[in-house]
């Protein structure tokens, strides 16, 4: 079953076509990789799906529903959550609070009930706190819960961001270069985590990544982009040996 369909997506900035009639589809429960050299337009695709950019043309369909006209803040409600390339945490909030923000779309409180701390609000606060702590436990960073996000090492910040995306119980997570800045063992841990998200939580994963070994190890299908266009799509074995892909990566550099 097709979970996410991107159809003839084009995004122009002035005269520049950052994404040029790109089409691909992600199946439910799949780990799908979006790769390509720097400036290929991968993050632009993410920003179109999360509605930060209004695509010039094309459609994005999630679970059979077109989401191309939604507002950015409505995307999490349809079940899509994301992380950012350059970690966008709420720096001056604690790790736990960051995860609480991840559930804001599903937190049932209004200004009056909150101001007077009605029992319903207390219950709701407890519910989301428990949920956030559970996610922190899964990520193995529960001991950092009450520390400020900005004081955390980079690796932990990346995990917090994944946690924040996870806590809203999304059905699709978009990870924008989750392994950037991580060492080998951290990347291995990350690969395990991503597989766990899919296998245990049944979340579909759309991944933009530069670490080729990670992509080749965990993705079932890959879409390779260059200059905004799709140059190849398929399972890792097919993509690895595709001459157009090898050509795109520094004119023939071997990709592992």
């Amino acid at each position, binding site marked *: 079953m097709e979970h996410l369909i991107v159809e003839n997506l084009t995004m122009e900035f002035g005269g520049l076509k950052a994404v040029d009639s790109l089409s691909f589809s992600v199946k439910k429960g799949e780990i799908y990789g979006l790769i390509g050299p720097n400036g290929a337009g991968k993050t632009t695709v993410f920003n179109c799906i999360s509605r930060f950019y209004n695509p010039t043309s094309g459609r994005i369909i999630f679970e059979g529903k077109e989401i191309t006209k939604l507002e950015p*803040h409505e995307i999490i409600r349809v079940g899509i959550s994301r992380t950012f390339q350059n970690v966008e945490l709420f720096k001056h909030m604690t790790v736990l609070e960051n995860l609480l923000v991840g559930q804001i779309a599903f937190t049932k409180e209004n200004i009056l009930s909150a101001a007077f701390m009605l029992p319903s609000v207390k219950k709701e606060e407890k519910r989301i706190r428990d949920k956030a702590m559970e996610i922190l436990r899964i990520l193995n960073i529960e001991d950092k819960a009450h520390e400020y996000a900005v004081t955390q090492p980079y690796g932990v910040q990346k995990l917090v961001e994944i946690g924040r995306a996870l806590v*809203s119980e999304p059905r699709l997570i978009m990870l924008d270069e989750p392994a950037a800045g991580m060492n080998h063992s951290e990347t291995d841990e990350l690969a395990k985590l991503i597989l766990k998200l899919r296998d245990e939580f049944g979340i579909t994963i759309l991944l933009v990544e530069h670490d080729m070994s990670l992509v080749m190890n965990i993705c079932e299908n890959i879409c390779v982009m260059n200059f905004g266009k799709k140059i190849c799509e398929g399972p890792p074995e097919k993509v690895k040996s595709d001459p157009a892909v090898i050509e795109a990566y520094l004119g023939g550099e071997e990709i592992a």
Partner: protein
Amino acid sequence: MDVKKYILVILLVLIAALFPPILNLPGSLQYLLDLSLIYAIVAIGLNLLMGYAGQISLGHGAFLAVGAYTSAYLTLNLHLPFFIALILSGLVTGIVGIFLGIPALRLEGNYLAIATLGFGIAVTQIFAIWTSFTGGFSGIRPPKPEIFGFKFSSYLSYYYVILVVLIIVIILTQNIVRTKIGRSLMAMRDSEIAAKAMGINVSYYKTLAFGLSAFYTGIAGSLYAHLLGFMTPYDYAFSIGMSLNFLAMIVIGGMGTISGSIIGAIIMTWLPQLTSNLSSIKSLSQIITGAIIIAVVMFYPNGIAYAGARLKDKLERLFTKHQEKIVVKIEK
């Protein structure tokens, strides 16, 4: 909340309630005390907007004027009871705040500061001309507040009205900033893009922040009007100068803290008064006040509330280290 904190809060409230009658301050100083608590409410409102939501306003003096004149109008012309006028002044000012929030959706940082500054100037000018509403130069006399037949005519008795309102404001604000709305505002302040991705309607929360902040200031404005007894649109509290003072309060006290707002308001209200007694030269007090502000900002850039927390932290660490040493010695 632990027992220690409860005891501390009760103690603070008791001190706030008991020390004015014990000190038996002269009228002018009791007036200043009343004023500092009113300004504390404004500072909490401004801090909600700046410290929590990350928006700037240099027009809060104007909100104070809107609240004050609304309350004066409602009590003088419509003969509404004080308590209802107080709430309505907050609501009317809140609506004005929402309107000011609309340009804030398109402006940021310095530009927003200029826009709110313009709003502040415009309102005082309008109020100066609109004599049928404000009385212009000849001013108006808002009545002394009356609740259930009791007239709060002395500064001391009125102090308790203000104190109760301030305590309610503190409790409600505390609850708001600790729950969904507070988290949304802080998230928006730290990263607008991530806030959007997490489902926060940034336009809504920016407007809400302005509305809430103005609501608080409107409440304070109403309290101010009935403290004054005689009011003109040329009052310093409605001016741009006062708007900057409000800003100084929360910067000195601590951005994003309720306690900081109160500390800042008290310092900024009392410091000029206390320093004015040091010398017969009038401008010297302003110079000293300015110097102290500069010193605070230099040495405690996060504000006094954070400095206090850091000091407590240091003491605790020192104490635990000391304990560890003792433990090590005993083990040896």
